[in-house]
């Protein structure tokens, strides 16, 4: 596309089928402790 560059991102709709294993880190367990962000967590399904 001439005017649009799309970054590679995880297909969230697809993750509905294969996600939800729950092995990822609890988001507030790292360096915040006073806020909540989940997007910076890594998916750990592969390492299960």
């Amino acid at each position: 596309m001439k005017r649009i560059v799309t970054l590679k991102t995880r297909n969230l709709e697809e993750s509905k089928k294969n996600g939800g294993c729950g092995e990822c880190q609890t988001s507030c367990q790292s360096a915040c402790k006073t806020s909540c962000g989940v997007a910076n967590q890594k998916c750990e399904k592969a390492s299960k």
Partner: protein
Amino acid sequence: MIHCFQLKGYHIVLDTVSSSVHVVDEVAFDLIRRYEELPREELVTECLALHPEVSKAEIEECLADIEELRKERKLFTPDLYRPNVEKIAKRETVLKAMCLHVAHTCNLDCEYCFAAQGKYHGERALMSLKTGKKALDFLIANSGTRHNLEVDFFGGEPLMNWQMVKDLVAYAREIEKEHGKRFRFTLTTNGMLIDDDVIDFANREMDNVVLSLDGRKSVNDRFRKTVGGVGSFDIIVPKFQKLVVERKQGTYYMRGTFTHLNPDFVEDIKTMLELGFDELSMEPVVCAPSDPYALTEADKAVVMEQYEALADLMHERAKMGKPFTFYHYMLDLEHGPCIYKRISGCGSGTEYVAVTPNGDLYPCHQFVGDERFKLGDLDSGIQNLDMQAQFKRCNAYSRPECADCWARLFCSGGCAANAFHATGDLQGVYEYGCDLFKKRIECALYLKVAEQMEEE
């Protein structure tokens, strides 16, 4: 729903539901912004007026691309997840993380401490090894098939109960294999009691170490001082430096808090970098609005500008081959969390609990000491199921205000503790925090965009 924003010369479009990220030129930006608002003919006319240098055919071509992305569900994606939210709110959950309050006491007397100088508005107390073991047994017993279990040694100041921490880690290593689990430990410390033994043990056993330093000496020592009023900077910095130099595995975070007294927190980040630290986090203070150090509305503009300055600094340093990480700008767009995680959030009160020195259970560390939120204890388990149900309902869709927010799948509805402390309601919205959060996500997306575009 989409979110269009400009930052540092880039025009960026985020598709909320798919979380697709597009970098576009001005023509595409104007077309996408108005795509759902105007009939096609009017859209073309408006775009021609805004961009006379572009032909109608070029605009039609761009519109065809936009339509293709829409069909691929990368733009204007309808909300696919809302129908399943009730199911998520009623889902079965298992415990996978614990914040272990091994010491309700502290050797610093930081005025801004949400934990009231480590005591959480209660008595000074240390967790016994017996209670610690009971907590880990409880975690294993309630963790279902989860393999990775997280335990944060927290306080107060956990190094004031260090031998117990070491003994408890040894116990965990004894029992994890027979139960098919892997404990991942975090130590959150103010650094005062770090010595060679702590460094050696923490660097071997802790997957993550969170080190508290607010940055510049004057800023740090304003709040982070001993009961006798001595600033901690000169004591803790050499200890932190030694720990980090010797750390060969796992992560660490140098974590600071900024307040009304230092909204120009990038200066503190620079100090951390000069001291040799490169895995950093800075958090806005959480306190009552009446506190003299609470961030004000006037501070917000400064903080927003600082977040952009921080993005600039990260970008420059990465180009110089001296990158550093900032916790809130870490985004893994390709391998980040699945939609379940993005909707359900931090799991406080359901997947994550805080355990007090005497074995009481709370939804998270920020509710400890507030009896209304006590969920139960290690002996009788979670008894307050009504309270737990309230936490289970906290997600990206539970607050009406989030329905038209583009960032909801990045924050999952935000921090329940912040919501409660700001509004008196778990389902409330801490708007100040939301504004800062959204700015951080814009900056994080910009950094991803800049990285990719410069590679190309």
